């Protein structure tokens, strides 16, 4: 049976504010020592009251505007109760009843086409601290407590891991361009709600939630593992699926059920009487709108969505010729991220060595895409690809023809390889004799000579096998 994957995401994003959400502690990310960045408020001492950091509201609204949300003019905070030593007040301040943004929409484009992802809500909340374990003791570090977060909750609209990763890359691009978050390692954390159903079914399958992942690679792998587990359970009755919270273990590539207790916890949410409702009037909203970057740089967003790093994007966008070369190469059917690496690393290096620049136009999208495609489909290896590129830059070579001429093609047929081997064996009778006399090392010398003759073309494993066969005769 064919199955459809159904996923919803909860993404926590750390906001780029100077101070924490309810106190004036700042610079937690630069703090070297545990508890360097704490005050009586964010360490839960009696007598301190939370005071709202307005910047947090503004950044949350900006995020909402970018994700096409309704901005709720009346928004309130609630307390979520649970005991854990890294939570100094034994409650987390968050938003349940009146979140700041609701009802948004974002489109993700993947190889499968475009899909609209509905945003259920965005709410503001504070982060918890962390525990440090040492020997028989545990210590608390409150540097991170009350660091402002927004949580973006989607509807169950994702149908593939690719869509999830594309969405996350898109959020990252938007939030960086909007000054909402630096989205550095660990500043974006994700919970994935996942279920599987027979294709065409309207009903949802049993849902599991994989908690707290921060690397996109892990998220992708976790989704692959978990969806396969669901499908196996449905198809082969391998196990009974239950609604539960799971944790992804990067080392084993598997997900594991967390203690049931945690999923059944009653957090006893209720309004926080220390924080008055926030009313966002027209004037404030207009001011936030005016401060929002006029238009998110669509190109940067596109690049970011492809997983290209900010540093690379900066270089790509610094020169129109470079970004055009990338776009044209992609238009010819190459992967965006792969092409970016070719352009920024290989082309830039080879051009500079040859004393040329992109402006000289020696590397065209047609030639570059030909090289990238040959490497991608295994016709030539990555190093051979680089050689071709050098030839393109230095001699204006045509990649496909050049590969044939130079015999770089790994897919050279066995007869051609055999011919080369025969030639090498004929030219090195001494080595052949040595090998037959039991000197195994002689084999290495003969193999090296073959490889040299083939100029890197052909599959080394195949060459070795043929060589052994010939010598055994």
């Amino acid at each position, binding site marked *: 049976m064919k199955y459809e994957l159904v996923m919803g995401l909860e993404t926590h994003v750390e906001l780029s504010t100077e101070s924490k959400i309810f106190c004036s502690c700042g610079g937690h990310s630069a703090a070297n020592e545990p508890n360097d960045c704490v005050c*009586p408020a964010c*360490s*839960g*001492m*009696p*007598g*301190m*009251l*939370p*005071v*709202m950091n307005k910047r947090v509201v503004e950044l949350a609204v900006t995020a909402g505007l970018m994700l096409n949300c309704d901005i709720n003019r009346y928004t309130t905070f609630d*307390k979520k*109760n649970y*005991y854990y*030593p890294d939570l*100094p*007040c*034994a*409650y987390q301040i968050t938003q349940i009843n009146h979140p700041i943004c609701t009802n948004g929409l974002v489109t993700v484009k993947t190889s499968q086409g475009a899909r609209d992802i509905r945003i259920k809500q965005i709410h503001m909340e504070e982060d918890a601290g962390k525990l440090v374990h040492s020997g028989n003791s*545990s210590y*608390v570090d409150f540097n991170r407590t009350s660091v402002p977060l927004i949580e973006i909750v989607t509807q169950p609209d994702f149908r593939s891991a690719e869509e999830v990763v594309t969405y996350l890359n898109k959020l990252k691009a938007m939030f960086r361009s909007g000054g909402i978050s630096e989205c550095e390692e660990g500043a974006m954390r994700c919970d994935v709600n996942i279920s599987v159903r027979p294709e065409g079914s309207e009903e949802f399958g049993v849902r599991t939630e994989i908690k707290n992942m921060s690397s996109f690679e892990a998220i992708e792998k976790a989704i692959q593992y978990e969806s396969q587990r669901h499908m196996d359970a449905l198809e082969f009755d391998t196990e009974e699926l239950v609604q539960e919270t799971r944790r992804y273990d990067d080392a084993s590539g598997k997900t594991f059920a967390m203690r049931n207790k945690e999923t059944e916890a*009653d957090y*006893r*949410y*209720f*309004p*926080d*009487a*220390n*924080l*008055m409702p926030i009313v966002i009037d027209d004037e404030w909203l207009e001011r936030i709108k005016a401060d929002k970057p006029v238009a998110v740089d669509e190109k940067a967003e596109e690049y970011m969505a492809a997983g290209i790093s900010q540093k690379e994007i900066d270089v790509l966008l610094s020169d129109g010729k470079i970004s055009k070369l990338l776009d044209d190469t992609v238009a010819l059917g190459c992967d965006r991220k792969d092409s970016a690496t070719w352009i920024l690393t290989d082309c830039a290096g080879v051009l500079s060595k040859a004393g040329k620049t992109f402006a000289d136009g020696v590397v065209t999208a047609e030639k570059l895409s030909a090289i990238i495609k040959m490497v991608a489909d295994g016709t030539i290896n990555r190093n051979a690809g680089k050689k071709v590129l050098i030839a393109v830059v230095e001699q204006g070579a045509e990649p496909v023809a050049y590969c044939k001429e130079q015999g770089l093609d790994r897919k050279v047929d066995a007869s051609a390889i055999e011919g080369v081997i025969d030639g090498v064996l004929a030219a090195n009778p001494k080595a052949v004799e040595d090998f037959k006399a039991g000197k195994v090392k002689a084999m290495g010398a003969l193999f090296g000579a073959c490889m040299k003759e083939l100029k890197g073309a052909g599959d080394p494993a195949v060459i070795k096998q043929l060589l052994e066969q010939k010598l055994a005769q």
Partner: protein
Amino acid sequence: MNQFAVMMNEKGNIAVDDTLLIKDVPATAGSRILEGFTPLFSAEAVERLQQKGYTVAGKTHVGEFGLDLVGEFSYYAPQSGALQGAAASAVAAGDVKAALGVDMNGAPRRAAALAGVDFLKPTYGTVSRYGVISCAASGEQVGVYGKDAKNVAELMAVIAGHDPKDGTSLKNETYDYTLADVQGKKVALVTDLLQKADEATRAKVLAFADELKAAGVEVVEIDCDLFALANTAWQILMCAETCNNVSRYDGVKYGHRAADYKNIDELYVNTRTEGFNFLTKAVILYGSDVLSKHRYKDCYDKSLRVRRVVSEAIDRLFGQYDALLTPAAFAASFDAYEVKDAFGKVFAQSECTAVANLIGIPALACHGVQLLGKAFDDALLLSLAAAVEKKGE
């Protein structure tokens, strides 16, 4: 009994209840759970008084987290015989001119009524709660004990006004506590509460009503059934908020930590078992229950709705009357009793006081009675009390 948990300055002219913080002075809120805790900053109200030249004699004992009747269940000063509040007694004895207290469930008002001094629970949001060992944020307020209304007004003028460190502090910079003429004012005497009070209390209330009349105030008797309703709602909200706010006392960061524990769960359980008294534990259990998934709608959420209904009904009453006159408690004195009976006793007595915490209106205990006014009419209540005090001179 010694009224002071910590003596700071023999010559000081004010006392501060141990539910408020003073920098570098141990603070416990009468609870073992905060044993050894020393705050890094002072409450805003204390700071403002010190800036105006007032000096603090010391920290006065309070019942654990201010949850009891008048302050009888402090871990540090158990009481026997006839109960009394420490700060109110210190003011009554003339040890200090005035004192600061936190009114969360009426304890300071009851204590003032017993001791024959005044205590004003101001309009919610007029005095900063910064530096209060907070339990029920939505209804607690820092107030003033004084020998008379003039005295209370003098301190209120210093401590009231906006504080950016408290998100619930109202934006007004200052408030006017000038005592004014009350002739022609209309006060409603709430008869339902009067009927529930003991003989001595009834006599005090009626005597106060007579004094008001003599001062030219019109006194009208009314029936009002809102008090019991308001009390139930406030006890639910107060227990819920207190349960949540004392959750932070877990033995991890400061205060008492149990000596015996093998893991974090045992550390929590043993610390809190040893650290809280029976009354606080009862409040935690009730509070936890009314916030639980199954009870939230019928208990907590309903109480929020009752708060709104009561507030509107009381507003309508204040359209007709300038103030309400009630007993501060149903009994004119209390004898020592077991802490396991405290929850019920406090619940019963709070019927007189809870409405002010629930909807944030000002309440003044004076001469063994209580006056309630509409929001921001604190000065009017003080003026009414002053009119009676003048008569009595």
